């Protein structure tokens, strides 16, 4: 498998100490990786470094062999992030929000036109269907959606981006058990071969060890360091205790 993303000796300082400490990590194409760790372990920081929104104080981040810092802006479209707070644009409707995922490959005129009259509506509908939402919602204001619908629209926006790697920052956080299963299935289904026929890789942070069997690999973070990196079937109670052990 080809290395998509490589982190080499990555170190990130925060206002309250070290957030990531000497991280060495390689993510290969097609992998489905679960990222575990207690609150404050560095999961969100690792995802932020991986998508380029956080520059490490030390170390290298490589995307397909090229430094993330020097990566052309358009190339970043290959990395899609499902943010924990979703980061939908409340003032726009569903179609316009989904289209925001395509901004990396469109010009300013297209972006302005989309604010008047949502463009490429069929592509938006495909993404909505892929996340199991009715296309009737295409022109609904974001503010009128339920929590679960918003989560799916955020995922639809990521799909519209057509990324090779999906980074999901605790997407199951604050969802009820039924929704957890639905969203996880959507993410996993879209990560392997999506309805849009794109081969994808998934790195997802979460707090549900019982769902680990759906993943190929588990990375455990503690106090900013990787303390576990093995196939998912090797995660046992002892390993979990090790990952979640308090300092």
């Amino acid at each position: 498998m080809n290395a998509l993303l490589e982190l080499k000796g990555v170190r990130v300082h925060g206002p309250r100490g070290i957030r990531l400490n000497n991280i060495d990590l390689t993510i290969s194409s097609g992998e489905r990786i679960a990222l575990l760790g207690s609150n404050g372990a560095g999961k969100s920081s690792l995802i932020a470094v991986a998508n380029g929104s956080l520059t490490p104080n030390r170390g290298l981040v490589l995307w397909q062999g090229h430094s993330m810092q020097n990566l052309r802006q358009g190339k970043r479209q290959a990395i899609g992030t499902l943010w924990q707070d979703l980061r939908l644009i409340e003032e726009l409707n569903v179609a316009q929000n989904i289209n925001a995922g395509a901004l990396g490959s469109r010009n300013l005129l297209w972006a302005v036109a989309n604010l008047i009259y949502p463009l490429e509506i069929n592509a938006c509908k495909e993404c909505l269907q892929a996340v199991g939402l009715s296309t009737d919602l295409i022109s609904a204001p974001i503010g009128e959606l339920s929590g679960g619908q918003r989560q799916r629209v955020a995922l639809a926006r990521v799909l519209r981006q057509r990324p090779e790697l999906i980074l999901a920052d605790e997407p199951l956080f604050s969802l009820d058990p039924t929704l957890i299963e639905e969203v996880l299935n959507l993410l996993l289904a879209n990560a392997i071969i999506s309805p849009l026929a794109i081969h994808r890789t998934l790195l997802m942070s979460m707090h549900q060890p019982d769902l680990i069997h759906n993943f190929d690999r588990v990375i455990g973070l503690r106090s900013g360091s990787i303390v576990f990196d093995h196939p998912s079937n090797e995660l046992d109670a002892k390993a979990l205790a090790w990952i979640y052990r308090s300092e």
Partner: protein
Amino acid sequence: MNRLSPTPTILSLLPALALIPVIGVVVTNVHDGGRLLLVEFVGAALQPSLDPVVVQSAWHGLQITVATALFSWAISSFLGILLGVASASVVWQTCVGQSWPAIVIRRFLAIPRAIHELLWGLLLLQILGLSPWVAILAIIIPYTALVARVVSDQLDTQDRRALIALQQSGSKPFPVLITALGPKMGPVLISYIGYRLECALRGATLLGVFGMGGLGIDIQLAFRSLDFQELWTPLWMLAGVMFSLEQILSWFRSHLRSSKNAIKQMIITVALMIILTLISVPWLNAVDIDLSESVSWNAFPWPTVAELKIAFNTLPWIQLVSSTIMVTLLAAGIAIGIPPMGMMLWPSRVGIGVQSYIWALLRLIPTPISALLLLLFSQTSLAVAALALGAHNLGVMGRLLKEGLDEQSNSGWQALRASGSGTQTAWLYGCFSGQSPSYLAYAAYRTDVILRETVVVGWVGGTGLGWQLIESLGSFNWAQVALLTIVFATLTLIGETLSDQCRQHWLGPSKVRPMILDLQS
């Protein structure tokens, strides 16, 4: 499905299109004579006159302007707060169980509010003659009504659950009002009253440009003699005062807010107002402005019904009203659309920094001077009036937009950048979209202000209610003055009602107050 869904974001950008016809007309009417003068004007900014006579005169004028602004601001703030409380429905409902007295007071206050301070100045000049009270009263009258409206709006839109709970506990009305609503008024007093001080300083300068004393006279005389080096001396002094005031108010707001004690905030604000009033009176005396000198009162020559009929039949009302509305719409388009358009096209830190300096410069130069500058190389037209008015208000809108964006989280921008968006599209979707409903709501309020301000640039356009009013005042045609004032006031009240509707639409019924409170708080 209705796909056409113009968002607040695009509705904030589209008004910028008004610049195209305006620039088109200004450029078509351009004449070569003024090009050299314009270069001289820009060059003189770097070499203001340091002649001791010029500096001394500007310093004297500056003191008169600042002291006049301080005094007028403090008095109008006091009166405005009192009348604001008196015109709040919640106060009357709590005290006597009915709200009609509040509505009556509110309607009464709409008239002084609808007339611009310059118009008040010109009217008072006819009644009081050349007196320092002209400029002071010209600011006090409309500002009192404006403060009163904001205070009453704020009181009436507050959450009343605590008030009802206290009332049901058997407490008396005044203690209930003070306890339930008083603490929430602290931020309003700090933000809005502080903002009105900046307005008072601009207003006092503007009144000077029209001959009512202070720094404005120095600016006007220097411009008339086309001595740009002498013009830049008072302008730089004014810039220094405006900048210092902005910094002091900003520090004051953040310092007071950190205390979290609303009652303390209010007490400090009111105490400061009293101190500044006490300082401003001896200060005015020190610069030879004697407020105790007797005022010669010339009763307003009320026109007869016959004179009013003649005036009504003489004036081309449709043309006057339509050109006033045209100038308002074009100026509002420029003021509303250009700041977000500029930031979208040049969203880098350097770009926004440069634009901030341009906005500061546009805010600094009084609108009549901007209009005169434009007239150096273009002929009089509605477009020149709209451009001058739009440019000044663009400075205000730009600053408010930037303040709003600075206080907003950058998570949307970050998310879009991480997904490969360019800086311009990421700014448009990730930054401006979140701010656009508030921006549009404030734009509605600003359009209302621009309509009032058309009187300032009316003479440049050679048409419109403002121009006709100044012409009628000059020819002492009191019947025309009375009718024009009534029409102007009616037009601004209609504008105010429409802008209220727009604000409610964009912000929801709970936020009818001007966005200045949202952006500057």
